[in-house]
């Protein structure tokens, strides 16, 4: 067993590795990451994950539900550290896996992969507590500076190979008939199908279709329900002509930036630095989609809010069918917005051991039928003129989205998580 495999085994048991090993690991990781562009190209199939936040036992649950590395390809969209009790073990394990299986796992940067944020939200203190010095924190921060800012998933199939699993609730069972394309499946952690959506075939007749069942926004009195399809906005609102292949999927931690109108502009940034307080790099890691028109100020004090029109323009211009991001807690684990042009994936169940949410990961399948990333062919279709009204939006050229399989899961059982003997700080107002 190589040293790396030993380190992986030790970290899988949630035991930190010695400082000297961390240094070596971080050095190797940096050498590897420095070769990556700001936007890494990733081939489908891939399983996309959102925030982890040091919830180590839930990360193990994620691997149980999604499959282990290297059998499953993973793309983690940042926020590995802070808040949870095991940021160190979680991040180092992911980093070891990255060094061991560089083509099987992609890590991109989240806004918590920053010196400033980790000193407020726990990772710095955790390193100090576990090693008695800030050295390990410093090594990790150096790695943070090299993480890519985004990933472009290409070759994702527009339809899912239907899962050969029973329905969780047989009364929701849908049969897939000849010629049906399965667009979305939602599976629970036991691998049973909760819901399945078939893509609408009657292109051009969309006016007769009702709007997508809007994703349940996180309303205050709402309890996440595992019936129905929480978060799914899948319908036949896709208007790409059938000749269109699927577009690529852009993955970033936060979202878009008013300074960035093309993926190539992301590629031009100088990323090897601490996350700045403003500017394009900051926005990619901090912004959020919102039900507004254009751009808005973010309540987070960094990044921006951006509306459906912005997403549609960006996707159109960059031949994207979907933007996949993390960054925001969603009680149902994932949430599709703006007619499935953007999705939030959140992978930390019962976030902070307090929020009561479920988590999700998103699987994109491999397109076996053609080369996958087919550039838009009908670029003459009405482009956005700040299109925000329904009609114009409907008419915007939109690529067929990838088939999406969401697996949701809950927090790992309490007894397996080995809470630290010392009770966590008061997380409530008393």
């Amino acid at each position: 067993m190589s040293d790396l495999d030993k380190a992986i085994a030790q970290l899988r048991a949630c035991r930190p590795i010695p400082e000297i090993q961390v240094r070596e690991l971080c050095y190797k990781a940096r050498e590897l990451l420095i070769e990556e562009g700001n936007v890494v190209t990733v081939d489908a199939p891939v399983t996309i994950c959102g925030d982890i936040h040091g919830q180590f036992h839930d990360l193990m649950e994620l691997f149980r539900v999604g499959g282990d590395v290297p059998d499953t390809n993973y793309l983690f969209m940042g926020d590995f550290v802070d808040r949870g009790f095991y940021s160190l073990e979680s991040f180092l394990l992911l980093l070891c896996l990255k060094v061991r299986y560089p083509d099987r796992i992609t890590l991109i940067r989240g806004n918590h992969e920053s010196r400033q944020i980790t000193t407020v939200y726990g990772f710095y203190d955790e390193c100090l507590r576990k090693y008695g010095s800030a050295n390990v924190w410093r090594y990790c921060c150096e790695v943070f500076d090299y993480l890519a800012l985004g990933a472009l998933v290409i070759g994702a199939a527009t339809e899912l190979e239907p899962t050969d699993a029973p329905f969780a609730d047989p009364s929701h069972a849908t049969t897939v008939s000849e010629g049906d394309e399965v667009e979305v499946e939602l599976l629970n952690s036991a691998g049973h199908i909760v819901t399945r959506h078939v893509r609408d075939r009657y292109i051009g007749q969309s006016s007769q279709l009702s709007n997508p069942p809007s994703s349940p926004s996180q309303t205050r009195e709402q309890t996440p329900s595992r019936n129905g399809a929480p978060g799914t906005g899948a319908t036949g609102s896709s208007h790409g002509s059938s000749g269109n292949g699927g577009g690529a999927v852009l993955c970033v931690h936060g979202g878009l930036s008013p300074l960035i109108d093309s993926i190539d502009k992301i590629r031009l940034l100088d990323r090897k630095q601490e996350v700045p307080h403003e500017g394009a790099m900051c926005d990619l890691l901090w912004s959020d989609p919102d039900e507004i028109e254009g751009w808005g100020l973010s309540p987070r004090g960094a990044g921006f809010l951006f509306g459906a029109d912005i997403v549609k323009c960006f996707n159109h211009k960059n031949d994207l069918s979907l933007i996949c991001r993390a960054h925001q807690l969603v009680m149902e684990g994932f949430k599709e917005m703006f007619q499935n042009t953007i999705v939030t994936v959140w992978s930390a169940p019962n976030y902070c051991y307090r929020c009561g949410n479920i988590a999700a990961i998103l699987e994109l399948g491999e397109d076996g039928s053609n080369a996958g990333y087919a550039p838009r062919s009908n670029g003459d279709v009405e482009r956005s003129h700040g299109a925000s009204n329904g009609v114009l939006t409907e008419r915007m050229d939109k690529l067929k989205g990838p088939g999406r399989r969401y697996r949701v899961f809950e927090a790992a059982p309490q007894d397996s998580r080995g809470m630290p003997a010392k009770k966590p700080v008061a997380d409530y107002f008393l």
Partner: protein
Amino acid sequence: MASIPNLNTLGGGRRGHRLRGGRGTTPTHEDATADSVERGRDQVVQQTDHDASSSRMSAVALGYLDDPYARTFFGHDTEIPKRYPIINRGTYVRTKAIDRLVKQFLDVRPTQKKQIVSLGAGSDTRFFRLVDESSASNLHLVYHELDFEANVNRKRTTLRQSAELSRLLKSGGDRGLTYHLHALDLRDLAVKSPPEIPSLDPQLPTLLISECCLCYLPHETAAAVLDYFSMHIPGSMALVLYEPIRPFDAFGKTMVTNLASRGIHLQTLKRYSTLEAQQGRLRLAGLSDGQAARDVLQLYDDDDWMAPEERERIEKLEWLDEVEEWQLLASHYCVAWGWRGEAFGEAWASRGGSSSIRNIQMI
């Protein structure tokens, strides 16, 4: 001058309904065990004051709140705890919202003598801040703080040891602000023949404050405590309370189990689970002239409660990344207030930000 009556003799220590096994019989072994279990539970409740006090200390240290006495009661030698930004923000909103309702009450009819009773006051600093802020003027106010004996003793020790606080008590006393600290288990007020609270003046317009206190009592007991005051004080009376709400959604359920694992049981939470239920409870408690309730998120987002400059100021203090979590947390706590009598009507229905307050009444 601050008379600090010794209430240890008063109803004290043993509550009526805890006297199991009947009078005159020696307690059985089981009684003794049950008693020690209950003492343990009470201890956990008493210690919640340390949480409140630590959160206050954290918010003060970071500049959210200006409160020179937080440190005095928290302890000068104790390391200042670090709370997450959302906790600091919540502590700020809760303190300011109650302060504001208190101030509006004190500002109305300034020459009239008034009374405040803080239930489960713990290490609360509000009285001392009031003395400070009113340093130029005369205020006619009788201020009572009630808590378990253990917590009251701790506060008394601090008062005795701090020259600053002694001076403050004296200067307040000279200007008509009297302070009373009572060691009392509130549940003792819920029995058939409850004790008198010394110096409680039934003739004064009286504001009760329950800042995260009544929620630890069984709901019947909490209601009986309010009845006690309602019966003793025939005239103007009001209650401002701050407590958790919404226990039934995913966040609320997790909150209930997490706190239970620390031995903390929010006994009124399910009954008063919404803003509406809180208002209904105030109405039932005889505070029939007006009731209002808002969750902490609403308070924070409302320019009437949070001046935009203030919001901007506190948002600059710390980088709060956890926006969704803040919304969850802040929507699970509320400030509710209800009243009877004109003094309160004037204070709360027609003064600053009145329109919004009137609107709330109609919810």
